[in-house]
C-alpha cells in the first residue's frame, strides 16, 4: 500500500470520494457554476451535506433522531453572533465558542434523554429545540428576537467563493471526525446501543457514557455549522431553529442512507440543486419542490429504508473490474 492509499485510509476516503471533492473544489471556476447565485446554492447544499453527516452520526448509529438538531445549530450561531455583536469578539474565535456552547447543550440533552428510548428521546430533543426557539424569540434584549440579529461576516468580501471553500472544508472535517469515531471502538458501542440496548448493556457497554459522547460531539459539530450560517448570511432570526429546518436535513440524511455518513453528503448536492431548480423554474407552483421532498422521503421510508447508500452498496460497490473496484473502494486490506 502506497502513501496515498494510507492517507486515504486514515481519512476514511476513497479515490472516488477524493475525485468528488476535487470536482467540488474546482466547480466554482467551471461555467455555469462560476456564477455567484449557483455558488450560493452550492454553499446551501454543502451546509446541508455537513449537517446531514453530523445528524446521521446520531440518527444512523445510536438510533435517536435528534429533532432539535437545528435548534442546537442555531444556538451555536447565536452564541457566536451575540459574542461578536455585543463583546466585539472576532467571529473566527466566536464560532468555536458557539460550537462549545452547542456541545454543552448537546451534553445536557444527552443527559435528559438518557432514560428515554427511541421515539421518546426524539420527542424530548424536539421539545428542547422548541423551548430554545421560544427563548430565542422572547429574549429580545439578547437576541433581538424576530427583529433579526445582524452579524459581522467572516470575510470582508462580496464574493461567495471563500465561504464556499470554508463550508467545503467544514464538511470534510465533519466527515473525517465522524467517520473516524465511528470506525473506532466507540463506534462499535454506538452501533450496539442503537441496534439493541439490552444486548449492548449485557455486553458490558455503558449506554449513558456513549450516548452522551455521541450527542455532545454531534451537537458540537452542529454548533460549528451554526457559526458558519450566522456569519455567512449576515442575519440570524429564530426561524433558523425551526423544526422544518431539521426536517430538511433529516430528509437528506435518510434519502442518502442512514448509518452511512457519506450517503447524505453525496446526495445533498444534486438534491438541493435540483430542488432549487424546481423552485426557481416553476415559481408559479409554490411548494412543489417541498412536495417532491416529502414524496421522496415517504417512498424511501416505505420501499427502501436503507436509502441511496444501501442501494449503492448492493449494486454498485463491488464491480468486477479491478481498477473500478479500487476507484470505488480504495486499496482493500482484508484482515
Amino acid at each position, binding site marked *: 500500500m502506497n502513501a496515498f492509499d494510507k492517507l486515504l485510509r486514515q481519512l476514511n476516503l476513497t479515490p472516488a470520494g477524493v475525485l468528488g471533492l476535487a470536482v467540488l473544489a474546482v466547480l466554482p471556476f467551471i461555467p455555469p457554476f462560476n456564477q455567484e447565485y449557483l455558488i450560493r446554492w452550492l454553499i446551501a447544499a454543502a451546509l446541508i451535506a455537513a449537517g446531514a453527516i453530523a445528524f446521521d452520526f446520531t440518527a444512523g448509529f445510536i438510533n435517536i433522531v435528534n429533532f432539535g438538531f437545528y435548534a442546537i445549530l442555531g444556538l451555536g450561531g447565536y452564541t457566536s453572533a451575540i459574542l461578536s455583536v455585543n463583546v466585539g469578539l472576532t467571529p473566527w474565535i466566536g464560532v468555536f465558542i458557539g460550537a462549545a456552547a452547542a456541545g454543552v447543550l448537546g451534553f445536557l440533552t444527552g443527559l435528559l434523554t438518557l432514560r428515554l428510548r427511541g421515539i421518546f428521546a426524539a420527542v424530548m430533543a424536539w421539545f428542547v429545540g422548541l423551548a430554545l426557539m421560544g427563548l430565542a424569540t422572547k429574549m429580545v434584549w439578547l437576541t433581538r428576537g424576530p427583529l433579526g440579529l445582524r452579524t459581522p461576516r467572516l470575510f470582508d468580501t462580496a464574493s461567495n467563493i471563500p465561504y464556499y471553500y470554508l463550508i467545503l472544508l467544514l464538511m470534510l472535517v465533519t466527515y473525517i471526525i465522524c467517520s473516524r469515531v465511528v470506525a473506532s471502538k466507540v463506534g462499535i458501542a454506538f452501533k450496539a446501543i442503537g441496534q*439493541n440496548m439490552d*444486548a449492548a*448493556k449485557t455486553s*458490558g*457497554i*455503558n449506554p449513558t457514557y456513549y450516548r452522551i459522547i455521541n450527542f455532545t460531539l454531534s451537537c458540537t459539530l452542529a454548533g460549528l455549522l451554526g457559526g458558519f450560517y450566522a456569519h455567512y448570511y449576515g442575519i440570524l432570526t429564530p426561524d433558523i431553529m425551526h423544526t422544518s429546518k431539521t426536517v430538511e436535513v433529516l430528509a437528506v440524511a435518510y434519502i442518502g442512507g442512514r448509518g452511512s455518513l457519506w450517503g447524505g453528503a453525496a446526495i445533498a448536492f444534486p438534491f438541493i440543486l435540483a430542488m432549487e431548480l424546481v423552485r426557481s423554474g416553476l415559481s408559479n407552483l409554490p411548494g412543489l419542490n417541498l412536495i417532491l421532498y416529502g414524496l421522496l422521503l415517504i417512498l424511501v421510508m416505505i420501499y427502501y429504508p436503507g436509502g441511496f447508500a444501501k442501494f449503492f452498496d448492493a449494486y454498485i460497490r463491488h464491480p468486477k473490474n479491478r481498477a473500478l473496484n479500487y476507484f470505488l473502494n480504495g486499496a482493500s486490506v482484508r484482515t
Partner: protein
Amino acid sequence: MNILETKQLTKRFGGLVAVNEVSMHVEEGEIVGLIGPNGAGKTTLLNAIAGLNPPTSGRVFLAGKETTGLPPDRMCRLGLSRTFQIPNPFPKMTVLETVNCATIFGNRKGAVSDVAAHSRKMLAFVEFPMPADTVSEQLNTVQLKRLDLARALASKPRLLFLDEVASGLSEGELTDIMAVIRKIRESGVTILMVEHIMQLIMNLCDRLVCIQFGTKIAEGPTQEVARDPKVTEAYLGAEADQCTAE
C-alpha cells in the same frame, strides 16, 4: 463458595409482584436450573439479578460482594453474562462484530490483546456454523442462539445465565447444545439456566430452584426437586392451561 446469592429479592411492577422475596444461591462450578411454569417470574428474576430491571427490594451478592442494583454493564465486567430468551443481537452487524462488542467492552481494558482472535475463538468454541462475516439479521433462530452464546462468553464470565437456550431445537441440536454447555462448565464457568425442556434439566443440572407466582417453592438437588409434589402440582396445573392456549 457461593458465586451468587440473593436475599429476599423482590420485584414489583405497579401492584403486581413478579418476584417475591426469593432467596437462593449458586455455588461455583455448578449448573443450576431455574424452573417454573410460564409467567412464574423466571426471566424477571434473572433481569433483577443482572441489573436490566433492578429489584424493588432485597439484595444480590456476586462472588461475595454486594451488587444489588448495579447496571448490567457493570455486572458484565464483574463476571456475569447472560443470553436472551429471544436472541436479539445486533441485526446490522456481522457475526464477528457482534462478538467483538462483548470482547471489547465486556473485558477489562487490555485484558484481551487480539480482539478478533478472541472473538473467533469464542465462535469456534460454540461451534458456530456460519462464516464470521455473515450479517446477523440473515441468521436463523438456532444460529442466533449460538451467536448469543458466543457473545455472552466473549466477556469471560464467571457466571453465565442461559435463558431458554434450547427452546425450539430439534433432538439432534439438543444433543449438540448439551455438549456445548458441558464444555462451558468444564472451562470453569458456573451456569444458572432457565429451562423448560426436562431432558436438558435432568441431564445437566446439579441442583434446581423452582418458582411459582414469583415465590420460590423448592430448591435442592435435581432429583429431589423433580419429585417434590409442590413442583409437580405447579407444573401440572400450569401445563393444563398451556395446552389449551397452544
